[in-house]
């Protein structure tokens, strides 16, 4: 039996999520022994044409050509996994969705006419079917290995969608909101990072996006109580998963 092929593609993003694969220093060579890396430009100049058995896509859709590319990638992929907040929620560059992208272009570029961009930054799932979404800005490497392992074993990845609060309890971290009145998005944020922010004495800033059971309307009064005004709250929710949290506010 030939090894399944792995492809990694990048859209609008920072490279951090695909770097997570290279950051699996203990497992990288073992993984490379189980799959055939067919397309991973950051790591290899060997590029094989599709179809691919497992495709990881980093980044959001922000240009007309990426819109075409993402459909092409889907067509070439048996199992398509999006990795990271850009690919699953639009990323930080989705802040353009709340602004005038032409004004943004004029602000950054002297010649906006050279720039071809969409008015929105959207997740891959807005355009094509996605088999699994791995959250995080950046993704967690343990979870990435779980997704690859589960794919190789032909089972569903074991990636719970509960909140960061669960991970704080498991880690034994004292609640920063209860003990110190620190504003924290942990109660509404998807677990996966290991609850690192509260362990370092700061509130969670929601880089994994909303959890499966988020009750955001109930959290907002607590953020106000802990000293945030409406503008602070809006900024707090509009970072790396802005549209996803906005949807939770409205629900």
């Amino acid at each position, binding site marked *: 039996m030939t090894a399944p092929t792995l492809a990694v593609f990048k859209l609008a993003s920072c490279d951090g999520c695909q770097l997570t694969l290279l950051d699996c220093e*203990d497992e990288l*060579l073992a993984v490379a022994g189980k799959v055939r890396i067919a397309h991973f430009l950051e790591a290899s100049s060997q590029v094989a044409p599709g179809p691919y058995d497992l495709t990881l896509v980093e980044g959001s859709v*922000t240009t007309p050509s990426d819109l075409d590319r993402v459909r092409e990638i889907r067509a070439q992929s048996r199992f398509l996994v999006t990795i990271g907040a850009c690919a699953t929620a639009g990323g930080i560059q989705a802040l353009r969705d709340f*602004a005038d992208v032409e004004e943004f272009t004029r602000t950054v570029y002297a010649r906006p006419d*050279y*720039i071809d961009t969409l008015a929105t930054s959207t997740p891959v799932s807005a355009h094509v079917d996605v088999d699994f979404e791995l959250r995080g800005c950046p993704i967690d490497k343990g979870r990435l290995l779980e997704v690859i392992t589960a794919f190789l074993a032909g089972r569903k990845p074991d990636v719970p969608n509960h909140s960061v609060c669960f991970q704080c309890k498991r880690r034994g971290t004292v609640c920063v909101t209860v003990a110190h009145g620190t504003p924290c998005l942990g109660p509404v944020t998807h677990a996966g*990072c290991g609850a690192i922010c509260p362990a*370092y*004495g700061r509130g969670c800033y929601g880089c994994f996006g909303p959890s499966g059971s988020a009750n955001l309307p109930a959290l907002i009064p607590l953020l106000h109580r802990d000293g945030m005004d409406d503008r602070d709250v809006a900024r707090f929710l509009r970072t790396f998963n802005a549209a996803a949290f906005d949807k939770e506010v409205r629900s």
Partner: protein
Amino acid sequence: MTHRGSRVLHVGSLSRVEGEGALHLRVKDGTVEDARLQIYEPPRFFEAFLRGRAYTEPPDITARVCGICPVAYQMSACQAIEDACGITVPPPIRNLRRLLYCGEWIESQALHIYLLHAPDFLGCDSAIGLARTHRDAVERGLRLKQTGNALLELLGGRAIHPVNVRVGGFHRAPTRSELRPLAEQLRRVADDAWETVRWVAGFDFPDAAVDADFLALAAPETYAIESGTPTVLRIDGARGGFILSSFLDHVREEQVPHSTALHSRLDGRRHLTGSLARFAISGSRLSPVALRAAREAGLGDPADGAVCRNPYRSILVRAVEVVYAIDEALRIIDAYEPPPRPYVDVPPVAGTGHGATEAPRGLLYHRYQLDGDGIVTDARPVPPTAQNQGAIEHDLLRIAQTAIVNDDAAPFPRPHGRPHLTSRGGHHARQLARRERCHDAHRRGRRPRRPVQGHRQAHGTVEGQRPARGGG
């Protein structure tokens, strides 16, 4: 040999680089007329959406420009905002920042040496391919990279987009006992770093010289990392500098049609930042152990002002910088006492602030304007990518030209060892040049001297741009 007519050669997607780009060469009658590094990273508009954000947010937000050098963005952002607010952080916090930065240097330079660059010298597609023949070397690289990441994880909470950095310092400072096992790990890989120097020193380097001025930060007592004064070493050997607040008067960014990364020039001239520039400008301030490593690498004696202008040999300087970063991290840990508070308060002040630090790939400058409520009204990050692009295109043009003229018969095209998008441009330029020779040979009805190897990427994305502002 002759090359008639005009042709345009493309590499559609550069591989083993950080970011996305393509390379185009225009060749007429055997002369390379133009080299263009097209960066088609889609625009992400950081400068635009940072406006209206709180002054506490740029460190976390700008980290997301570059997943490979997030600490650099966090450090330049903190420094610029603190400068706007008139705050200088005390030495213990500064040392912790430098320690965190050492973690990023170790990780990022090990990544560059072993995973992006070394495969070119040894005729492999990737580090994974390299591991089949040089398993020990790849494992050594991964151990170094892992140690850099361990430092980032302890001090920053995680390796990519650390969470522990804040304006004024850190959310939490480590204890001495937390740092102890890390020091053990660093001591263990110090030998790996030395072995890296010896390993890369044995590579075969073509002759080349960067035709550009060098720009790097310089600090009075040390090899500048987390702060310093912009210092210029011109190609004619003249040394100069300028105050940080005048950075944008000297380094001017301009847009070119073929790239979404802005190009910049230093006082109207091509310039280069990064390892070669740092080594040329601050090499004499390396620690004794790193000075020895530089001499052993064949870079000459930095204490006597050794300068290396060969871009292929930048891998040697990176290896020396890994030795240095490990040595420096151990020095900081040995002297470490936790600061009384992990951060200093930074009340917002209306004004403009400037920050610059040495990202692994070169000088990263940030400027912010704040209003009295601490809201960002203007943001200008200038990444090393943009600064280096002009110098690199010029080098690629010359490398391709030399390869065509010499009918270069190297068994495997060698890299240009360069930061970010450009890191492997020379490799691609030589590949293209070789295709041009083969094409020419075919037309004249004889077989090329060697089969065309490589160039497995899609040749495409010609004029239809896929734009953006590139990363760090």
